[in-house]
């Protein structure tokens, strides 16, 4: 089973990418997390450049389509979803009916340097993903004060956070297994 991991932050020291790495370590055996790190290669969404499909957009659509589930780690900029992440979701939404997130299990986590762990951005991403028809896991993982949230090995330092992350990815994997069972 493959989970596509998308971190909504571009910077090298991204805490949300660190959160994806922690999530990868928390996945059950046989489940892999594959990061998609090309958000910055996506052009700004623009109907005028939809055809031919820009290469990076096609790559993103293919990566989502090929994955069994998607895990999104979002920071929060000015109480909302970062533009680069919303841009990716907007590209994924086209064409709406056949968009690769439709029916796809999606979970959202978030880290922020403030107290509240991007909880508002996470809610927004869940709302947008649900609008696109994704099977959204209705859980959140707000990792606040993220500059001190990870230990030297990259694991979440707080036991409560680590437990909540394991439960969240566990539910995401469970959704995929349910879908497999339904279609078998």
């Amino acid at each position, binding site marked *: 089973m493959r989970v596509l991991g998308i971190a909504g932050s571009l910077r090298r020291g991204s805490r949300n990418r660190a959160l994806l790495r922690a999530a990868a370590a928390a996945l059950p055996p046989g489940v892999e997390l594959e990061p998609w790190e090309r958000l910055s290669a996506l052009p700004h969404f623009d109907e005028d450049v939809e055809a031919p499909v820009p290469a990076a957009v096609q790559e993103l659509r293919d990566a989502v389509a090929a994955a069994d589930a998607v895990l999104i780690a979002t920071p929060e900029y000015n109480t909302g979803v970062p533009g680069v992440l919303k841009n990716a979701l907007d590209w994924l939404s086209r064409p709406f009916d056949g968009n690769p997130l439709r029916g796809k299990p999606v979970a959202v986590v978030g880290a922020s340097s403030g*107290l509240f762990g991007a909880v*508002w951005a996470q809610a927004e991403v869940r709302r947008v993903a649900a609008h696109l028809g994704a099977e959204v896991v209705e859980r959140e993982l*707000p990792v606040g004060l993220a*500059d001190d949230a990870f230990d030297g090995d990259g694991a979440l330092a707080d036991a409560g956070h680590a437990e909540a992350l394991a439960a969240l990815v566990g539910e995401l994997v469970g959704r995929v297994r349910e879908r497999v069972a339904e279609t078998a």
Partner: protein
Amino acid sequence: MATALQPLSGSYAVDAVHSSFGFAVKYMGVTTFKGTLDDVSATFAVGADGAVLEGAAQVESISIRTPEQFRQHVLADDFFAADRFPQVTFRSESVELADDGSATVVGQLTIRDVTKTVTATGSWSPEAELFGTRKAALALSTEIDRTDFGLVWNADLPTGGKALADDVTLTIELTLLAQEA
């Protein structure tokens, strides 16, 4: 026992290194955020009319140092407005140090431009000779509603409830150094 105990009398200054003004507030409905105002000055004077505790803590000395944005928000008008109100101050109206070691202090707490009467309870330790200095201690705690003092910031959580609780627990630990008369 090498140390001699005696009831508190005379004047005391606060040992800044061993004193703190702490606060704790719940956020996200579950987790507690704790911090301190590290720069505390206070005096404790016992006179004929009883004891008076008077102190101030500098808002700029708040233990939230990074991230810078977070610090600036806490010092800004949503919280302390530190540029206009650089200190949190307290002046007692009554101090009761009971024989069982418990302490009750009632006084005027000023945060920003709001002054309110608060009652703090805790414990006190009688004077003891330590490294050549006569020291005593006072540990107090009280709960305030931060919005009463104009620290009003909040936000709705996406799944219901508020981001930051209104009730804040204040914890004051003072090491008192006897001043030579």
